[in-house]
């Protein structure tokens, strides 16, 4: 006879397992496809009969993918850095200072976060062409920054609010200049929040497809998610399924490693933002 508690646990276990399977099957599928030989792609087996690295070798042989990878890394890193630096300053002000128009500022940033990006794509396309930043790194970095700043400000201000105000006063009384107080006392305490925010923003930039496909036209600034869509088979009769799968795995792995490493931090960061924001 199982106790009531035992039955509840089993029940939850089953539900959790279903959710995990639901989430993981597509990922496994892609991974399996990436290891299949093009001739066995449609043989109906989930697990490849013959394992091959050919798809991976293939995508790294042409500059189409490597160039896109460089673009992705460069654009995501730069956009993340700028968004986190600006977000840190803004969040500090939001959390610490009372100033006129604070509510308006918070409201505006929320508004930006709520704006459907798809509605901005065509105006941005036109604006960027006029400004001459269409199909450049800057052309992607700027919208990424804009859309990730609200996220950064929200998460970071939740972290800053957790730091007791008295610490900064104590540092001032101990003879610190405002800059020293920030550098020696506040920044070390805010570091976990900054790291969490950086990861969240990085994932957002890294995964974006909409802006990447709309605001680029050549390999000059095309990031991996967009570049994958331009993959072609080795002949016009061949589907590039294997290469697409391999490329998808390559860009997913770093994110998975990141998230595993900082898992606790990110969860804490998200809940902090949810409760305090």
């Amino acid at each position: 006879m199982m106790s009531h508690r035992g039955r509840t646990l089993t029940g939850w276990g089953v539900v959790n397992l279903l959710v995990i399977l639901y989430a993981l099957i597509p990922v496994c599928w892609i991974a399996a496809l990436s290891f299949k030989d093009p001739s066995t792609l449609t043989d109906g087996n989930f697990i490849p009969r013959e394992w091959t690295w050919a798809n991976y070798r293939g995508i790294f042989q042409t500059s189409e993918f490597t160039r896109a990878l460089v673009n992705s890394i460069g654009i995501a890193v730069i956009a993340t850095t700028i968004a986190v630096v600006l977000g840190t300053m803004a969040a500090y002000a939001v959390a610490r200072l009372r100033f006129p128009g604070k509510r308006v500022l918070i409201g505006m940033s929320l508004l930006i976060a709520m704006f459907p990006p798809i509605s901005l794509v065509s105006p941005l396309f036109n604006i960027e062409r006029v400004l001459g930043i269409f199909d450049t790194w800057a052309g992607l970095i700027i919208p990424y920054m804009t859309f990730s700043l609200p996220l950064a400000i929200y998460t970071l201000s939740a972290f800053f609010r957790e730091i007791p105000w008295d610490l900064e006063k104590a540092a001032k009384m101990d003879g610190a200049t405002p800059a020293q107080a920030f550098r020696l006392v506040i920044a070390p305490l805010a570091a976990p929040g900054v790291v969490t925010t950086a990861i969240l923003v990085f994932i957002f930039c890294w995964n974006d497809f909409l802006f990447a496909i709309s605001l680029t036209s050549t390999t000059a600034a095309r990031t991996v998610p967009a570049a994958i869509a331009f993959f072609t088979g080795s002949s016009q009769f061949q589907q590039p399924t294997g290469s697409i799968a391999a490329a998808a795995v390559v860009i997913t792995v770093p994110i998975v490693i990141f998230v595993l490493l900082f898992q606790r931090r990110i969860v804490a960061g998200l809940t902090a933002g949810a409760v305090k924001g």
Partner: protein
Amino acid sequence: MAEIVLDGITKRYPDGALAVRDFNLTIADGEFVILVGPSGCGKSTTLNMIAGLEDITEGTLRIDGRVVNDRAPKDRDIAMVFQSYALYPHMNVRDNMGFALRLAKVDKAVIRTKVEEAARILDLTQHLDRKPANLSGGQRQRVAMGRAIVRDPKAFLMDEPLSNLDAKLRVQMRTQIAALQRRLGTTTVYVTHDQVEAMTLGDRVVVMRGGLVQQVGTPQHLYDAPVNLFVAGFIGSPGMNFLGATLEQNALRTSLGDLAVDDRLRRLLERQDAPRELIVGIRPEDFEDAALVGERRTGQACTATVDVRESVGSDVYVHFTQEGGPAGITELAELAADSGLADTGMRGHRIVARLDPATRAAEGSPMDLWIDTSRIHVFDPATGANLTHPERAEY
């Protein structure tokens, strides 16, 4: 070490709210001054203005003879102990205590000696390499003190440093702080809302209410000669009892019976044009069980029914209820709200008497009480002023 002079200090917030109004006080070198009052009375704001954490709207602040209104906290050379302790969580005790000296670019060996010396005084030597998170409340409090004394500053500012400790530890630390201050001889300004702390620690106590200084004096002086209803009710535990009274020919008619008005009191009241409706204040210890009072002592007897008898060993506290206490007096309402009395929902007006433990007072039965009429205070209900204050007798 230094003298601190507050000359007409006023704090007005941008929205027009006055937090502190015209605060004048000269704190002598080495003096221990307590700012006390209910929450929102402006005591912490005053402390923060001395610290430099808040701007001074009007008036001048001099530390050691120099005007420091526009100086940053770091240029005032004063140390502060916060209610939350505000220890840097990412530094160990040694680094916490030495932080100010490191910022001041003091030689490393000197920092080490000073920190260890302070740790020895505060009994923290074995905890020097631990993080604040691993310390108990009392140890954290001592680290906060240590951070202040390591610097050997001109003055200490303490913002309710004991309010996060449990009752027993608080009493211990209170004694330690007093001993430490005497030993170092550093000018100290201490903020608290606890009148017991104020009475036991300070050389002088400043009672504040609504941003205004009510009275400044030694603890005993505030207790014996409060200038108004607020100070009278705030200082002392249990607080002073207040009764509505009507001035008759030769007596003050109260719900406890008529209290005889002697010549001294009559002259005082006449000279000040006292109104007919007055408030009488009687300290709990100015009551006594009539059966235990010798014949020779002059005073007044009355009868009341005991509600609650509390024995604390050395004394017996007797509570009884009187109908119709003084009503509509803002000071008294404020005091009741501050002590939490307003929330107890009890009807009527409570009177507390401190009696000799030999008393036979029993709950539920009437007893004869004796009142020392020479020690009663009489207040003007309109202004709250104490009409029996000794300074008024000298007019």
